């Protein structure tokens, strides 16, 4: 998988299939977002339905400074510098995640699902109402972030950056998973009362995970903004949050590589099916239902289960 994602896009680019490189870039970016969501969903067992908002914030953190540098105003943040964009993206996401996390984590179950969605929708309507940045029409990013050594205008370097970022994020989640922090988080997922009883403040751990997960999605947004050079509130809508969630579940939330494989399958399915018919939502929806009904641990889990029956929850 790792090798495939490294080699195939390069070959595609060299053979002149630039459009396919685009698909791979989008795929890798969404995989990063899915990994970010999985931190809170897979490890923490908290179903956040508003993570598209962080991707949006990350993307607007690129668009807004570029807009002001080009057209004037707001000198404090106006810049083409990629580090400014990145810093802004991560900082804004951390703040937004912290504020909403403090409130949301007081609730559980379906209430948590819906309150995270409510916060996402608030962000959506807030952006829609700011006319300066295009409102509903979205904002075209005239120039990509300027970074040292990497020219993001080259599709191949952009892909390289996304690819390496994905590896880093997966490695990071791997480390978190096996750290004291990760184990506490998983403990809180299976029995919160018990963890609290033995003197662990689950709330604190969950809030930290929530913020980290938001920041990773914000980073994915930063990359997405640079990739599409166009951002609109549409990418913060609750159905988008649902799609990222679907990637995680499809791949298998319990697995390290689950979100990545989920993202690959999602994009491939979407692309292949929509090639054949405008009614592609029907087979897509059916697959979704079947995946839930019959693949308890996602695709990764199913393959895992086939080859080593019994050991389903090891990754």
């Amino acid at each position, binding site marked *: *998988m*790792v090798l*495939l994602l490294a080699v*195939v896009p390069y070959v*595609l680019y060299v*053979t*002149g*299939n*630039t*459009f*396919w490189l*685009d698909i791979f870039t989008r795929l890798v970016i969404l995989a990063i977002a899915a990994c970010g969501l999985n931190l809170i969903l897979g490890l923490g067992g908290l179903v956040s339905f508003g993570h598209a908002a962080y991707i949006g914030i990350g993307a607007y953190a690129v668009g807004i400074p570029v807009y002001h540098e080009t057209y004037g105003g707001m000198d404090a943040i106006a810049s083409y510098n990629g580090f400014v964009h990145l810093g802004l993206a991560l900082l804004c996401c951390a703040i937004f995640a912290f504020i909403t996390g403090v409130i949301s984590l007081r609730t559980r179950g379906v209430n948590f699902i819906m309150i995270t969605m409510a916060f996402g929708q608030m962000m*959506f309507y807030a952006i*829609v*109402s700011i*006319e300066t940045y*295009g*409102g*509903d*029409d*979205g904002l*075209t990013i005239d120039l990509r972030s300027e970074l040292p050594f990497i020219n993001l205008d080259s599709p191949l370097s952009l892909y390289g950056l996304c690819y390496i970022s994905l590896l880093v994020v997966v490695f990071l989640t791997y480390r978190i998973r096996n750290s004291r922090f990760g184990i506490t988080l998983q403990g809180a997922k299976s029995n919160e009362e018990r963890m609290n009883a033995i003197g662990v403040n689950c709330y604190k751990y969950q809030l930290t995970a929530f913020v980290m997960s938001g920041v990773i999605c914000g980073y994915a947004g930063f990359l997405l903004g640079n990739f*599409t*050079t*166009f951002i*609109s*509130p*549409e*990418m913060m*809508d*609750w*159905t988008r949050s649902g799609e990222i969630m679907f990637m995680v579940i499809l791949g298998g939330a319990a697995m390290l*590589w689950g979100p990545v*494989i989920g993202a*690959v*399958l999602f994009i*491939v399915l979407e692309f*292949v099916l*929509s090639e054949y018919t*405008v009614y592609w*939502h029907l087979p897509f929806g059916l697959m979704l239902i079947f995946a839930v009904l019959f693949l308890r641990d996602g*695709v*990764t889990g199913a*393959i*895992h289960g086939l*080859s*080593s029956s019994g050991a389903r929850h090891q990754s």
Partner: protein
Amino acid sequence: MNKLRTAVTVAAAIGSMAIGSQTLHAADQVKIGFITTLTTGAASIGKDQENAVNLALEHIDNKMGGKPVELIMADDGFKPEVGKQATDKLVKQDDVDFVAGYIWSHVLLASRKSVLDAGKFLISANAGPSPVAGKLCHENFFSTSWQNDQTPMAMGETLNKKGVKSLYVMAPNYAAGKDMVAGVERTFKGEIVGKDLTKWGKDAQLDFSAELAKAKASGAEGIFVFYPGKAAGAFIKQYEQAGLKDSLPLYTVFTIDSLSLPKLKEGGMKSVLGSSMTQFWSPDLDVPANKKFVADFREKHGTYPSFYAAQAYDSIMLIKSAVDAVDGNLDDMDAMRAAMKKADFPSVRGEFSYGNNHMPIQNFYSRTVVEDADGNWTTEIDQVVLENHQDVYAADCSL
């Protein structure tokens, strides 16, 4: 990781398929990509445009400059991101010569860079947001529609001519909605006594009871609305149910068209008859090209074509005029551009010319909703309100 072999094989298969299906650019045909909305509730507009494009190709025997035309329809799903992806595919994968279509302003704004950066022609068959007419105008961009502000400006003028002194304004709260309101405010000389911008987007507001109650209480002499797509039917119904036809006459732009009128008739919404609207074109416009277009369209599909269809039809004719001018030599971009600038083709709106920003300079008519001889509901032209009108953003365009 070896347990993922299946997934890897699938992905590899897809990858190889990609290389296999890559099409080489064939110089012996004219490739046109057409982006419109083929899914969601707005698909009826896309269907109408698709029908018009196919009719246009039929009328020209599917030939431009002696070469056969290959048409690729693509769906924008009513979302800018999806529209941009579809555009990228047309430009990068299918390597089309022209990209036409675009119903929605936000889809056009999201996609324009992909087309123009690749050095292809971009023809808008509906969307006309102010940036593409002004600051973001481009030598390879042409429009067969209008700039957003023009139609409501014509409405403001119509209201002045009818002697309306006070007006209540309603539109959805998004960029085009605000453009429409700004447009009517620019020319209307009376007083605007109330204004409502209603929630738009995914969970758009379709129940206007609160706003209509306010409008009625405001004592305005008329109500101006802009509600495209399915919101139009909802608005008209509630306007009817609230019994406002006599006390608060209706003035609309882009709300009542050939797509909504049959449905309104079916629903018995009689209060729409007699209401006013403005447009650059009408099915009854007395131009030979239009007569042929409307008659053939009605024969084939049983309904009047909408203005979306008229613009889509014109976009194909505009492309043909360019390809004909260079005898199919598609590499000669300059000559094709020069040919398009002349607007030298039988447009269904009659004669018009292009401004420096490649937006049409054209007439705008006021129209009334009427019942035709066969009992169908359609619109009739009253008079020309704005003659050879150019949009105000042309001054911002550096071309």
